[in-house]
């Protein structure tokens, strides 16, 4: 939905379609989303390719405005029955040569290795970027890979212009042409783990500099990342980075101390949807005197291995709770008995807390030290203002649903 003038088409059965349709509806993006329903007969008759091609073509002809790009999602069932996906895309591209078809795969079932659908989607989103050699701008940096634009106060948005660079992001593109200009950057920068796979391939394909500066809650790691960035950019007037970093760290320390005084010993629960580094956040908070009791996650990212080892040793009683285990459907609270600060929507749902930080995927916080300072501010706000989770958390997964999903 982030690509301007693009339209999404999902080809799948009713069961999976339910979630996808509800997502589009909750985003108020119904006019940019269409679907083709696969029925049992399409599997038995072996005509899934024809259904996908004809269904998609029919939908495109019925659209009020011809989109510049179609994100065509095929799903698990296409793979199960060995569907000829190349034929599907080839025939559609022949029928609609003016449209760019992006190959999107929603195929999570039984896939145990290789890139995930999320990683593949983030790759597909940038596959139509290219650039003529004379249009490449070495002073332009495109920050790609995340669903969210960085906060204006983020370190990157402060540092890059300081070094004489123009920053472009997908979220600020209003037209297809603006989107295509993202490809002119001399450097592609990614901060979000799921985006790394696609953006690195993009940089390789266009022969550009690639920087991966993952979001972090560790001062030393952020410092190293920003030094790499600074050395790569080579700012013209040799500005010193270290004093700037020291100032940023002292701002973080002041913010964390202020928040700790407000929150005190209140139990804190964190979940992985808030930020890809939930254990890193737990470590930061514990080292600053906060009472982190629980982290909701299902597996641990390689980027968190060090934080995991640290927590194992220093906070062995820290509780890890699964979010996808079947028992968790019952192991949650309707209402928290005592005040708990939940960081993330899943933590709010499982603890029943009405005091929660309502943010996913790190949102715009992915920009170095400022992300830490902003997290402290958000925790303080969440602790002070009661919220109704039912009006804020996405409804498609909320209780009461009889679907098997």
């Amino acid at each position, binding site marked *: 939905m982030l690509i301007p003038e693009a339209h999404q088409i999902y080809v799948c059965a009713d069961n999976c379609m339910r979630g996808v349709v509800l997502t589009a509806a909750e985003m108020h993006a119904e006019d940019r989303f269409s679907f083709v329903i696969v029925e049992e007969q399409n599997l038995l008759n072996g005509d899934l390719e024809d259904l996908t091609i004809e269904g998609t073509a029919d939908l495109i002809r019925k659209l009020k405005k011809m989109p510049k790009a179609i994100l065509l999602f095929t799903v698990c069932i296409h793979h199960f029955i060995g569907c000829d996906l190349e034929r599907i895309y080839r025939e559609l591209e022949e029928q609609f040569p003016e449209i760019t078809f992006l190959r999107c795969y929603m195929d999570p079932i039984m896939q145990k290795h290789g890139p995930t659908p999320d*990683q593949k989607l983030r790759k597909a989103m940038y596959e139509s970027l290219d650039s003529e050699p004379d249009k490449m701008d070495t002073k332009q940096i495109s920050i790609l890979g995340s669903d969210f634009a960085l906060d204006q106060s983020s370190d990157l948005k402060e540092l890059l212009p300081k070094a004489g660079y123009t920053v472009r992001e997908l979220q600020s593109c209003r037209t297809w042409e603006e989107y295509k200009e993202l490809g002119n950057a001399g450097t592609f920068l990614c901060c979000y783990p799921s985006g790394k796979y696609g953006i690195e391939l993009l940089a390789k394909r266009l022969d550009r500099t690639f920087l991966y500066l993952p979001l972090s809650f560790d001062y030393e790691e952020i410092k190293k990342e920003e030094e790499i960035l600074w050395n790569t950019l080579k700012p013209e007037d040799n500005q010193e980075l270290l004093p700037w970093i020291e100032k940023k760290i002292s701002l973080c320390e002041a913010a964390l101390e202020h928040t700790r005084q407000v929150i005190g010993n209140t139990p804190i629960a964190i979940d992985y949807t808030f930020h890809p580094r939930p254990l890193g956040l737990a470590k930061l908070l514990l080292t600053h005197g906060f009472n982190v009791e629980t982290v909701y996650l299902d*597996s*641990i990212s390689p980027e968190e291995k060090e934080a995991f080892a640290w927590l*194992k040793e220093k906070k062995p009683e820290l509780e890890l709770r699964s979010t996808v285990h079947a028992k968790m459907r019952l192991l949650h609270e309707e209402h928290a008995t005592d005040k708990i600060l939940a960081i993330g929507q899943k933590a709010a749902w499982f603890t029943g807390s009405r005091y929660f930080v309502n943010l996913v995927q790190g949102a715009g916080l992915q920009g170095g030290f400022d992300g830490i300072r902003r997290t402290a501010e958000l925790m303080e706000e969440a602790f002070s203002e009661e919220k109704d989770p039912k009006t804020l958390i996405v409804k498609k997964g909320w209780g009461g649903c009889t679907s098997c999903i």
Partner: protein
Amino acid sequence: MLRKVGESAWPISEKDAVVSIKDASYPIPFPQGWNLIHRHMAVGISFILEC
């Protein structure tokens, strides 16, 4: 007697769904059963967001 899914006559044990970090394994902290869901080994989250 038939019972609606979600209703339980006995307390649900936390075994296998909750673990202290000192007892947790890496990269998957919980005992693994048969699971249809693709775990994001590269990025550390289970994949259920889009479908």
